[in-house]
């Protein structure tokens, strides 16, 4: 049976921003559709409307010519629309089976049979009776997908599903999605990764600033043309020049261990590496393999043994982040909104979070607001943050602008080493390019970078050396030219 989903003249307005501006789209089963756009383009709003999370101001949705009134996620489920969100909605301590039946009122026994048959059909192998916290990200996603499949959906919406997956898991996912599509499920795939669109989809709809820009068949497009539509300008492709080989060692980590009392944290086991001046060391890995702990140990949020970290011929393992900053280290954490910045505080107050001695942000214990503001203005203009109001609360900056502010704040001391963790996570192409250019510039100035990232493309683009972290252990350090994304994928999965 054919499924036809039609979005007709949908508009959603938020104060100060039109999230969806009169969007009309039509989907038919048998094809995989990509909904492509930068962050803030309105694709998330559109799929939230389709899944009943947001109610549009205007416009209608039709499924097989029936006008749908989606007032809640439950309405969407009842109308056979399934959605897998970017962030998993699973109860970590419950078993897989309990997670699957939690929103169903069918008999447990019949459901178990149904789930077994679904798993068999699509070659999923997951133990139903272990707690979800023991699953890998890829398996968790499969649980989410099964949860949708139980209801025999006509439409399956996937929101940025590959952000936590390895290469191998991604290709498995793509195989499954193609199978679903053959079975007649209409697939809508939301992403900003162009490569995936080319690999997986049949048709692509591009959104920009709330408007639908184009709908076209993939065979008529290529990565460059899509990127231009998405960003709305011709992007220059950036390439890193091969670094001058320097043997001047900047930081050396020796036998660094960290064991946590928290069962949700990863222990770090015998970490050893060094970075030379002007070099970028990339650390790849699937999220949750100890990256966050490694970042914290390097930044000083977690104190380690004094001798385990040698920076510029000083042992600094037992110093706090603030003390490490005085040795010219800088840090850009992964979580922009909960760690690197405080959304409820103003831009200039966030700048003051990097309080190095020579800044004079605070004199004799008093806030020197003029100095902070002066500094903030400089960061905003030097790093292209798109605002001129430093009194603005930083929650009103887009992800890209906030990240520029954070990187700017960290680089204003011209540090010898910048440690960043997923610096472009969730950003749009324009902002990603800007951040990448900035990072390359740092290396050109003979400063070093440790780049912890889950984005393999980013690592291959920026790193001189690459290592992979898996279950708290670091693989051997490889030269970036010798590494391919496939090889990284295998190491990220834990194989040798």
């Amino acid at each position, binding site marked *: 049976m054919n499924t036809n989903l039609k979005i007709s003249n949908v508009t959603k307005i*938020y*104060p*100060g921003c039109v999230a969806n501006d009169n969007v009309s789209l039509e989907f038919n089963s048998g094809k995989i559709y990509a909904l492509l756009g930068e962050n803030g383009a309105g694709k998330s709003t559109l799929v939230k409307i389709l899944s009943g999370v947001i109610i549009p101001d205007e416009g209608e949705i039709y499924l097989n010519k029936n006008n749908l009134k989606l007032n809640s996620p439950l309405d969407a489920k009842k109308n056979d629309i399934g959605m897998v969100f970017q962030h998993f909605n699973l109860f970590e301590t419950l078993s897989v089976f309990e997670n699957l039946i939690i929103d169903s009122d069918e008999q447990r026994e019949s459901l178990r049979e149904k789930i077994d048959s679904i798993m068999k059909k699509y070659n999923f192998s997951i133990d139903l009776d272990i707690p979800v916290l023991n699953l890998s990200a890829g398996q968790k996603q499969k649980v989410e997908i099964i949860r949708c499949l139980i209801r025999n959906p006509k439409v399956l919406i996937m929101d940025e599903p590959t952000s936590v997956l390895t290469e191998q898991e991604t290709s498995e996912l793509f195989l499954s999605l193609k199978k679903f599509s053959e079975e007649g499920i209409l697939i809508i795939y939301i992403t900003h990764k162009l490569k995936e669109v080319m690999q997986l989809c049949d048709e692509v709809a591009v959104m920009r600033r709330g408007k639908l820009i184009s709908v076209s068949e993939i065979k008529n497009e290529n990565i460059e043309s899509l990127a231009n539509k998405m960003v709305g300008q011709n992007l220059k492709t950036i390439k890193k020049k091969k670094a001058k080989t320097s043997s001047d060692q900047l930081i050396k980590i020796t036998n660094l261990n960290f064991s946590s009392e928290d069962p949700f944290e990863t222990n770090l086991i015998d970490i050893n590496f060094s970075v030379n001046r002007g070099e970028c060391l990339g650390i790849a890995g699937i999220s949750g393999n100890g990256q966050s702990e490694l970042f914290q140990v390097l*930044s*000083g*949020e977690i104190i380690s043994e004094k001798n385990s970290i040698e920076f510029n011929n000083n042992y600094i393992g037992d110093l*706090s*982040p*603030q*003390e490490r*900053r005085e040795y010219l280290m800088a*840090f850009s*954490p992964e*979580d922009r909104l*909960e*760690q*690197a*910045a*405080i959304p*409820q*505080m103003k831009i200039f*107050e966030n700048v*003051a*979070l*990097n*309080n190095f001695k020579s800044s004079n942000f*605070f004199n004799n*214990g*008093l*806030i020197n607001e003029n100095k902070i503001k002066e500094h903030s203005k400089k960061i905003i203009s030097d790093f292209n943050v798109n605002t001129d109001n430093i009194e603005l*609360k930083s929650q*009103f900056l887009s992800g890209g602008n906030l990240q520029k502010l954070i990187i700017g704040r960290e680089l204003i001391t011209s540090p010898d080493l910048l440690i960043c963790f997923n610096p472009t996570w969730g950003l749009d192409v324009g902002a990603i390019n800007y951040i990448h250019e900035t990072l390359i510039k740092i290396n050109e100035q003979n400063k070093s970078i440790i780049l912890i990232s889950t984005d393999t493309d980013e690592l291959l683009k920026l790193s001189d050396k690459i290592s992979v972290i898996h279950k708290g252990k670091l693989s051997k350090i490889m030269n970036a030219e010798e590494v391919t994304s496939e090889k990284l994928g295998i190491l990220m999965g834990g194989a040798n």
Partner: protein
Amino acid sequence: MIKIVKRDQPPRAIFFFTPVLAIFLTLVAGGLIFFILGFKPFEALKFFFIVPIADKYGFSELLLKATPLCLIAIGLSFCFKSNNWNIGAEGQLTFGAIVSGGVALLFYEQEGFYILPIVILAGAIGGMLYASIPAILKTYFNTNEILVSLMLVYVSKLILDYLVVGPWSNPEGFNFPETRQFSDSAKLPLLFEGLRIHAGIFLALAAVVISWFVFYKTYLGFQMKVSGFSLKTARYAGYKGKKMIILVFLISGACAGLAGVGEITGPIGQLHREISPDYGFTAIIVAFLGRLHPVGIIFASLVVAITYLGAETAQIFMQIPKYTGQVFQGMILFFLLASDYLLFFKIKFIGSKK
């Protein structure tokens, strides 16, 4: 049709409007309760809110009650702004009073300008010591500060009970549960002849100014603010989060302790069983009604202080129990929490579409 819409950013005006709305709703609901009880609502409200402060004496009484509320609420605002839920100010007040009272008794029948400062300091230190218990347990043993600070209230009240009945009771006091009168040098001076308002009010005003200065102008205040929003950010910036937690508890304990000093070294001049009509708990309402802002807290403490006075007047003139005062305090908090809904949502009236 009425539609509820989520706000992206609450406008500043609403922030100060909802406390006013809460007070208004409290008056309406209070009037309704009086009506049900068979009183004329407006007359009853007049007895409650206007008669008590109509003369000079009443006004002095208002300031007398508002002083400890303001002082404690200022201290609590440090805790609450940084997400530390110290609800044991009553205990810190009591313990502060015990320590300062003990010191005051040491100087029994002695005179000297140095006595009063020592007594005041002793009260602040007592409050700090008592507040440090939940703080240290929270930071080093992961206990819940709400539970610990609350339970310690009853411990301190029992200690006070034991002292005034037992070892510290007045030898010439016919076994009344109270201590000797402090010497005049250990008492806060009264400001006006015939009125009970005393110099403690200056402690409260000083606390207001100092807290404003610390929170908005100093690095320490900035660190507290950041730690309150996100401990993760504080750690990343290199602030000592644990120290910050202990510090806000100490500040809060010191303020409550000072309020305790004011209560015993003011007009009463001795330790007895009931030194505080739950000022420490009521101050929680004051802190929130004043939006944790120093100036807001001044106004809020005056408003809430009226409910204490009103309850007494109502008992005398209308024969209703003075606990009505607590009913009003409860209603203020209730309506404040309810009208805070408007901070995050706005109500839109839209014509019905057909």
